[in-house]
Structures are given as structure tokens and as C-alpha cells.
């Protein structure tokens, strides 16, 4: 059990559509980070949320947006999907100011 729950586990979408991925952090964690892991690549940082605000952002276009709720859970939204958005999307939770991450098992997004 990873402690971080992501849903759904797999998703197939068509180019141009929009998608929402969900993450519930490990109990006691208040910070959620999202990563994109394309095939054959390491995870790439998308953004991080703390206190319901985006605190850091990686090199991803505005089509990628997120949200954090009062219960610390988070959503990742991707608009106008491209074929290149096909990847494993990982959520990681942590406690602010601490560097210990716990990763979820990810959502496998396939854009056709």
C-alpha cells in the first residue's frame, strides 16, 4: 500500500479532449506534487500544491492545471489533449518543509 491513492488507474482519451486525474495524499501529508513520466523517461515535475495554492511549477504549458482541496487531495487537469500527453502521471505527497515523498502508483493516460 503506497499510502497515496490515484484514480483512475488507466484512461484513454481522444486528442482535443480534457482529462481530470485525482490524488489522495498519504495521511498526515499536506503537500501534493504531480509528475509526468513518459515512456523511457524519468518523472518530470509538473507542479506542486500546498495550502490550496500552486507553489512551484515545472516547464509545462498552461494546458496543465491543478487544484488542491481543503482535505489536501488534489486534481490534475489537462485541456486540449495531445498525443504527446500520453504518459504515466504520478502524484507524490509530502509534509511541507520536509523532503520525504510518498508516490502513488500513477494514472496511465493514453491519448489516441
Amino acid at each position, binding site marked *: 500500500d*503506497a499510502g*497515496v491513492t490515484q484514480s483512475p488507474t488507466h484512461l484513454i482519451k481522444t486528442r482535443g479532449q480534457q482529462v481530470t486525474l485525482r490524488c489522495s495524499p498519504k495521511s498526515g501529508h499536506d*503537500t501534493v*506534487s504531480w*509528475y509526468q513520466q513518459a515512456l*523511457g*523517461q*524519468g*518523472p*518530470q*515535475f509538473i507542479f*506542486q500544491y*500546498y495550502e490550496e495554492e500552486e*507553489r*512551484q511549477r*515545472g516547464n509545462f504549458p498552461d494546458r496543465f492545471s491543478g487544484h488542491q482541496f481543503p482535505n489536501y487531495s488534489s486534481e490534475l487537469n489537462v485541456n486540449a489533449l495531445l498525443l504527446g500527453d500520453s504518459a504515466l502521471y*504520478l502524484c*507524490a505527497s*509530502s509534509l*511541507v*518543509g*520536509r*523532503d520525504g*515523498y510518498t*508516490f*502513488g*502508483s*500513477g494514472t496511465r493516460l493514453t491519448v489516441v
Partner: protein
Amino acid sequence: AQSVSQHNHHVILSEAASLELGCNYSYGGTVNLFWYVQYPGQHLQLLLKYFSGDPLVKGIKGFEAEFIKSKFSFNLRKPSVQWSDTAEYFCAVNERTSGTYKYIFGTGTRLKVLA
């Protein structure tokens, strides 16, 4: 910006062989270094981490890594691999900005251990 390089993309070993996976990072300041493992279909798991102190770090499942500051390296080693070590291994550094951390990962090394 920091970057992490893993030189071996695919490694194939027989059981009981010794393993060394290379990792180099770009940042010249104080770094925290990590090795993560991802077994097929599973989430990323922390193998070991280095913050400070003894540059030889021991992790779970018999893995260890050595931090060599002069070489900007943090290589992962295991004296004798098992079939169950078949997985993808990621080296990472973390970067602190405004009180929060983000991780920068290498591209990973896919290890296959033959029984």
C-alpha cells in the same frame, strides 16, 4: 537548474553478479540525493538517500550508494543481484524553493536479472 544523468539505460546481469549503476548530477551546492526503484506495475519506492555525513549510504534490500562530491556522482551498487531486483532504477536530487522541495530525476536504468 539542476540535472541528473544516468549513463546506463539498460543493464542485463545474471543472478549473483555485482551491480553498479552510474549517476551524476550538475548542481555544485548542497544536494540531497536519492535512488528510487520502480518494480513492474508498482509505485516508485525509496531505496536510499544521502543528506550529509558518511558518503557511503546503505539502503534497503542490500543496496548501497557512494557520494563522491569531487565527481558529482552518486553511484548505486549491490554485491550480488537477484532475479527479484529486475526493475527500473532512478537517481534523483531534490531542490528546495520557497520552503518546498521538488525532485529532479534521471532518465532511469532498466535492470534485467536473468535467473
